């Protein structure tokens, strides 16, 4: 079953035609990896799904981005509600300059949950799901800025999970992390895919093979090839895909 279906998506930033006739299906409760060279539109693509591009004045799109069959750009769509359902983890860990607790409670508070008991319970649950609880349980009041980069990124995942999303978008979540922290995040992704539909942008092809079931290859704003990850890396159908994964460019 598909959680997201994108039909003939074109995205422009002013005159810059960034995504060209993109069609992709994202299956529910699986990990889909997006690979491709820098500047080919991977970030733009995932930011279209939770409408983060709305913040950019020159942004314009055509086509449909269906979440559970509903176009996220339909005029009745509540963007606040959409971003609650479709969480996002950024390239550089970006915890707020607040306590660890308040970082995770942030989404809950802005969506109207202020009762201390339910906050505590849900913060703990989210931190456990993000495999961070054991490392921070006795310093929840400390600033999140004091955590290591890897811990900060898991905190950002916890912060997203606390909102109880259906989809998690990850934009090169490990690119700023050391190998050990990267392994922890990858293990976490394995665990999370049972409950969430995950789209992960990655520069690292080994990472795509390690964490994802499906992979789409982007080039110059187009999807060149989408397939099962095992297939795409072993037997790419398109010459350009083959060139990219064998390191001939990118």
């Amino acid at each position, binding site marked *: 079953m598909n959680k997201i279906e994108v039909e003939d998506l074109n995205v422009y930033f002013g005159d810059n035609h960034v995504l060209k006739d993109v069609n992709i299906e994202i299956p529910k409760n699986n990990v889909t990896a997006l690979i491709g060279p820098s500047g080919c539109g991977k970030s733009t693509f995932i930011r279209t799904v*939770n409408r*983060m591009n709305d*913040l950019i004045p020159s942004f314009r799109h055509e086509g449909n981005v269906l979440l559970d069959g509903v176009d996220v750009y339909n005029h009745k769509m509540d*963007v*606040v*509600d*959409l*971003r*609650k359902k479709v*969480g*996002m983890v*950024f390239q*550089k860990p*970006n*915890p*707020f*300059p*607040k306590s660890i607790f308040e970082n995770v409670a*942030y*989404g809950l*508070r*802005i*969506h109207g949950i202020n009762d201390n008991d339910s906050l505590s319970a849900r913060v703990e649950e989210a931190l456990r799901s993000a495999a961070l609880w054991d490392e921070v349980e006795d310093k929840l009041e*400390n*600033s*999140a*800025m*004091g*955590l290591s980069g890897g811990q900060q990124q898991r905190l*950002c995942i916890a*912060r*997203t999970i606390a*909102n109880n999303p259906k989809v998690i978008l990850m934009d090169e979540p490990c690119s700023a992390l050391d190998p050990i922290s990267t392994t922890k995040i990858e293990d976490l992704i394995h665990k999370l895919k049972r409950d969430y539909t995950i789209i992960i942008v990655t520069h690292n092809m080994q990472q795509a093979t390690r964490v994802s079931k499906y992979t789409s290859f982007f080039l110059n704003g187009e999807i060149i090839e989408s397939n099962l990850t095992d297939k795409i890396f072993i037997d790419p159908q398109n010459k350009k895909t083959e060139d990219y994964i064998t390191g001939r460019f990118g």
Partner: protein
Amino acid sequence: MGFRVLSPRISQKIMNIVFIISGLITILILVFVLGYILIKGLPVVNLDFIFSNPIDSGREGGIFPMIVSSLFVTLIAGIIATPLGVGAAVYLAEYAGENWLVKVIRFGAETLASIPSIVFGLFGLAFFVVFLGLGWSILSGSLVLAIMAIPTIFQVSEVTISSIPSSFREGSFGLGATKWQTVYRVVLPAAIPGIVTGVILGMTRAISEAAAVMFAVGAALSLPLSIFDPGRPLPLHLYILATEGISLDNAYGTAAVLVILVLFVTIITNLAVDRYQNKIMGR
């Protein structure tokens, strides 16, 4: 040109020495001025001087009403200027984008900041005291000081808010926060240290003003009990004591109290700001 014949290492050394010397000179001037005021002023400062009323125009007695006047005008000025300055900064940095109105507001703030304080004083007399009929009062003085402090508070706050990394805002939007929730819950708390610094800068200047308030607060020697009473802030008292040859000793004493007050406020708020900064940044 002659500089180019020196090796980079040597010119670096020379520049280091130049920087150290100019730094030292700055500190020396500060120590000298402060030391001079304190040495001349502190001998007359005691609890009695601080807590009693002036006698015979200030030739004898203390400066209690002046201390109260100073704190009073500055506090009211802060209450008026802070929301306006910070509000304008939030609007410009977060909402307005770049348009002609924004440029006009920025230019206006810069111009306002460069107008001599005596001109503000004159404006205060014409507008608040006479036209609005507020008379010589703490309120009139506060309004003049507020107008003077707004550009400072605004400029420092705007720079601070603009320097908050956009990744914080993205994180907040990504969790479904609205613009206002993001500003209120993420941007402003992160900007608090800079905003407080701006407010304190504006307020320490306000508390040090004689020219701006001399036509607006009156020069009453009595204790102001409401915002409609006239008063005499410390710098104005000091000015009158010195220029009218009433008592140079008490003028120095008044100056010493003013300096200590300003230092005290600056140091306390700096410590508080550092503490807050360390807390939110986890240091």
